[in-house]
């Protein structure tokens, strides 16, 4: 493998891991409510921006990160409680429009609370590149990959091993039957927004030292995460991860071998191609499965 290819793959995996985290947020909310939460990117922005501003205020980064994640989760819970929950029973399209409105509102609030400038977060463990297979990798990329891996394992455990996680899956499959089992589906919905917001925030914090952050960073990252979720099959956790990594690598290779001008276009081409040719994505449920 050429060093150049290795380099592209490493940077593709790094950004792909971020897309995967964002895509997982889409998947979790989609499963709980069949809503595509277009405010998902805003959680990413809040995570990064809150960490930067807390760090600038003098808080050690290790303390700023959990505070920022909790703040984003609180915003997610509030979004569910005050915007989605009151519209329960409305059509999914209405709910999606509500999330679009919320994303615009959150971006506006971000420019008021913070500003419209680009901000840099200091890398967690310096910025001296590490040699790897002829290529180099930033320590921050290792943080991105390591934390994403840990989160994927934790989510796998949560949904595969705990009764609460299984209740969330059950609710997504059949809300009525879940209710008859005594599951409080409103709590499931609330939990899904809190969890998705926290995941988005972690993604925003991890990537901030590599790509800078700003009030509108969530627009593009949200769209990329959405493309990854569509590619993997909306609602599939494994699909979100594979879709994110695949999109990241495709972008990185496209930018490297074609032109970096095409980088962002790749995500949109993928969205369109999947919607036209493979509507259920790589890991999505076949429509025949839904009886």
């Amino acid at each position, binding site marked *: 493998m050429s060093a150049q290819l290795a380099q592209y793959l490493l940077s593709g995996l790094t950004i792909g891991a971020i897309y995967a985290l964002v895509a997982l947020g889409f998947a979790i909310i989609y499963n709980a409510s069949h809503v595509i939460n277009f405010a998902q990117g805003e959680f990413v922005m809040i995570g990064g921006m809150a960490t930067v501003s807390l760090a600038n205020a003098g808080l050690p980064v290790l303390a700023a990160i959990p505070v920022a994640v909790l703040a984003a989760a609180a915003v997610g819970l509030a979004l569910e409680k005050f915007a989605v929950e009151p519209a329960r029973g409305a059509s999914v399209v209405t709910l999606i429009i509500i999330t679009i409105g919320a994303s615009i509102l959150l971006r506006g609030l971000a420019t008021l609370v913070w500003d419209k400038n680009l901000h840099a977060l200091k890398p967690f463990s310096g910025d001296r590149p590490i040699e790897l297979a002829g290529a180099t990798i930033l320590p921050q990329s290792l943080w991105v990959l390591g934390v994403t891996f840990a989160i994927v394992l934790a989510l796998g455990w949560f949904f595969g091993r705990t009764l609460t996680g*299984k209740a969330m899956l059950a609710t997504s*499959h059949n809300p009525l039957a879940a209710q*008859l089992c*005594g*599951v409080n589906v409103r709590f499931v919905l609330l939990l899904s927004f809190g969890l998705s917001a926290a995941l988005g925030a972690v993604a925003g914090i991890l990537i901030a030292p590599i790509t800078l952050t700003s009030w509108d960073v969530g627009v593009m990252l949200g769209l990329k995460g959405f493309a990854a979720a569509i590619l993997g099959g909306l609602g599939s956790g494994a699909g979100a991860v594979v879709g994110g990594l695949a999109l990241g690598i495709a972008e990185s290779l496209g930018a490297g071998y074609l032109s970096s001008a095409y980088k962002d276009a790749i995500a949109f081409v993928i969205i369109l191609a999947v919607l036209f040719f493979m509507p259920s994505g790589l890991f999505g449920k076949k429509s025949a499965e839904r*009886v």
Partner: protein
Amino acid sequence: MLEVSALTSHYGRIQALAGIDLTVEDGELVALVGANGAGKSTLLRAISGVQPSSGKIIFNGNDISGVRSDRRVRLGIVQVPEGRQVFGPLSVEDNLRLGAYTRTRAESDAELERVYAMFPALKERRGQAAGVLSGGQQQMLAMGRGLMAKPRLLLLDEPSMGLAPRLVEEIFAKVRALKAARTTIFLVDQNARAALSVADRGYVLETGRVVLAGSGAELLADEKVRQAYLGL
């Protein structure tokens, strides 16, 4: 145990329940029969709290009309819904464990053993996805999942629907066994003869109203019931 009075429910402007009064006593098996669309499922859903309704629902002396559905399950009102509604992608055992969602882990363990003893086929398939089971096995799973919640009042909605005669007989044998174990049961079934035969009492529902009530034997002998629901 259960006392329903003046219960009404609507789908938009369509009235599905037009003032229902009925009771189920401790340890009784009460059957509810009626044609398709009479409102039987709507009534059961209203009792479970997953369907908006007005009127009064008293359970063990407490008015539960405004109580959330998950709290009603905790109180012991457990429904096995029409059409089985198992969680297809989840394993048989996960489906059962979710039935005990409102119970402690120890209760769940104990109930799981009892359910497996009652439905050995489920134990053999405990690791399989519920969606690949046959219709009869899915119905057993739906009943098992309901029993996992330790019901004080079990609401069974069409447990024999769409099953071959041999399986219908098996389901009703389970219902009789539950009755013998003093489980209080409110049973809806299109198989009116079988339902009224196992029931202590029964109600006949027509377009959202109770039009007849009596002991199972009385209703089986009733001329109107024989014509309309037993095909005689």
